[in-house]
């Protein structure tokens, strides 16, 4: 029984496994979950849109124009007689003499060429780089003429451009809400799990109380309490706080559960017996062991946050115009009459559904991969 006899034969592949950190093992397992990997790309794409929202927008999402309300989605024509020349047709608006509805007919004689990196309305890229370059747009054309990929709303605002800007608001409100919940959840869940006793009892009962309150009336009450005089930014912040007020309870329970389980774990007891301080036990042994679970729980909590914001805004309790979010875009689709005339307004539901699904698949995959030792 010599040392050499016990030494396992070391191959390169085996060594790679033997020296793989937790992060690597998690990634290897996550990669096998195809749906989760696709979801990761979808989420990355969405956040890319959120970051470059103004750059991707074709026309000013806030510019109203009564003469171009309810324009249906426009198709891009890629070729004309001269070969490749992407363009949209100019529009001719005329009132229907029977219904008095404004109807638009494309005017094939007037081509508006679609070009990349055109100049449009001015904005601040990343909030500090002043520019007016946009990914695409039309050149020439009369004032007010532009490209309307997804049509316009009642006030003549380009739905596509609004959707880009709304993505930013909706995704970041989710992120901010989840960050706040995470902070509250880890703090209160940690205290609850670590100290136990009456502190644990108290926090758990508070969680149960919060969870037993029906959310919509609670939100309505809280949203109604927001002063009407508050600025868009203040409302934005307040809504984040309201949403995370409920959201933290789930995370707190996850954290508490992990603390309770880990406290009895042999390797934690071993650290305690070797004389390690409380701080070292928590930060060196316990936190790394459940960090992955918390991340997974967070990614599953994010869609709930986004849905919350969307439904709040949809009901008119959340963000208010002129702020643009998915919920506010869908607000326009509340009216059945409007909807029958302009069904494209409902397209704001597509990114909501997509991003929620992606987050759920991603969170599932992450949760499965989070514990490579389990």
């Amino acid at each position, binding site marked *: 029984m010599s040392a050499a006899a016990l030494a396992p034969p070391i191959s390169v592949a085996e060594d790679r*496994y033997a*020296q793989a950190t937790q992060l690597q093992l998690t990634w290897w397992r996550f990669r096998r979950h195809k749906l989760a990997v696709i979801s990761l790309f979808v989420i990355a794409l969405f956040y890319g849109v959120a970051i470059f929202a103004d750059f991707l927008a074709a026309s000013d999402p806030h510019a109203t124009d009564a003469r171009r309300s309810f324009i249906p989605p426009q198709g891009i024509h890629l070729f004309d007689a001269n070969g490749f020349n992407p363009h949209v047709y100019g529009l001719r608006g005329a009132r229907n003499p029977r219904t008095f509805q404004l109807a638009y007919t494309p005017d094939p004689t007037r081509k508006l060429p679609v070009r990349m990196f055109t100049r449009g309305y001015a904005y601040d890229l990343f909030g500090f780089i002043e520019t007016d370059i946009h990914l695409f747009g039309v050149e020439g054309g009369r004032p007010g003429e532009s490209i309307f990929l997804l049509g316009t709303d009642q006030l003549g605002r380009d739905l596509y451009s609004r959707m880009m800007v709304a993505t930013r608001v909706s995704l970041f409100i989710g992120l901010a809400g989840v960050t706040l919940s995470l902070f509250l959840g880890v703090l209160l869940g940690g205290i609850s799990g670590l100290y136990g006793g009456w502190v644990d009892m108290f926090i758990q009962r508070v969680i149960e109380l919060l969870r037993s309150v029906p959310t919509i009336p609670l939100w309505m009450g809280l949203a109604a309490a927001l002063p009407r005089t508050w600025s868009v930014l203040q409302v934005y912040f307040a809504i984040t706080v309201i949403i995370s007020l409920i959201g933290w309870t789930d995370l707190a329970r996850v954290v508490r559960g992990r603390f309770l389980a880990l406290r009895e774990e042999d*390797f934690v007891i*071993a650290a305690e*017996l070797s004389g390690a301080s409380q701080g070292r036990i928590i930060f060196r042994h316990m936190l790394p062991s459940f960090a992955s679970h918390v991340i997974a729980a967070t990614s599953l909590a994010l869609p709930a946050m986004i849905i919350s914001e969307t439904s709040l805004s949809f009901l008119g309790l959340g963000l208010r115009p002129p702020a643009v979010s998915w919920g506010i875009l869908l607000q326009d689709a509340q009216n059945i009459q409007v909807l029958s005339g302009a069904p494209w307004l409902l397209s704001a539901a597509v990114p909501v559904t997509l991003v929620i699904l992606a987050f759920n698949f991603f969170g599932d995959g992450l949760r499965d991969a989070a514990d490579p030792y389990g």
Partner: protein
Amino acid sequence: MNLLEVQDLKKHYPIRAGLLQREVGRVRAVDGVSFHIAKGETLALVGESGCGKTTVSRCILRALTVTSGAIRFAAKEGEFVDLATLPKRQVRPLRRHIQMIFQDPYASLNPRMLVGDIIAEPLKVNGVPAAERRDRVTELLELVQMPPGARSRFPHAFSGGQRQRVGIARALALNPKLVVADEPVSALDVSVQAQIINLLLDLQDRLGLSMLFVAHDLSVVRHVSDRVAVMYVGRIVEVAPTDALYRAPLHPYTEALLAAVPAPDPARRGHRRIAQGDVADPANPPPGCAFHPRCPYAIDRCRVDRPELTPVSDGRWVSCHRAEELDLAGVR
């Protein structure tokens, strides 16, 4: 020279019920246990699951708060401190003298730490400088017969037996005066068990280890221990030097445990008296001798009168009314 003296150790868990959480009963997990461990000696604590042996070991390590009794430990030469009553803050500096080997080598190593860091952790928290730590880890890996390359790998790269070696190396890192081994081989394959037992024997020789060896069957204990204490429902029923205990047990429960030791000779399998029934409930132990419902030799007195642990001959103690008259079967 005694290293550890445990006297009348009790650990009770209250059973609470109702809205006001009133105490309605007690689980007497450990109910008056006394023993001692001399320097360089290995004492085995044996009993079935649920008899309180793990509780005893956790009390000695002060991973649990003791209900009553004394745990006197010779931290310095001839100077005893009572671990049972010492405040938690004063226990911490003594921790380095008593270390533990765990039962489950999969749960006892932090999967997120390199093997080298796991072994070095007790050194680090006790303020050993980095260079010295590195040398000591090399030395310890060699001591437990692991390749030096193991330090830069994670526990998931190793088998149960190899992990247990890492656990042993960690326990030995601080040169403890006493090692508490809580069933260190019961989670391992039989062939690996032998390797770990041999390693422990080797370490006893080389380091003069004092050890409390907790086990649930007598088959592994024979090789490592100098003396054996047999526990049943929170109490010690027999203490004896290992050879004497195996040759001629004095308590019927010891006999039953010995009968459960696998015998390589099929001819001897005929007359085994394996204990019937289950271990008594420590929340509601039977009156008299706790073993009497399972004991083939029980008389009326056993049902009412609880026997005390009394000395019989040189170093042998037993708690049985009929110890003198019975002729119990041992193993050779």
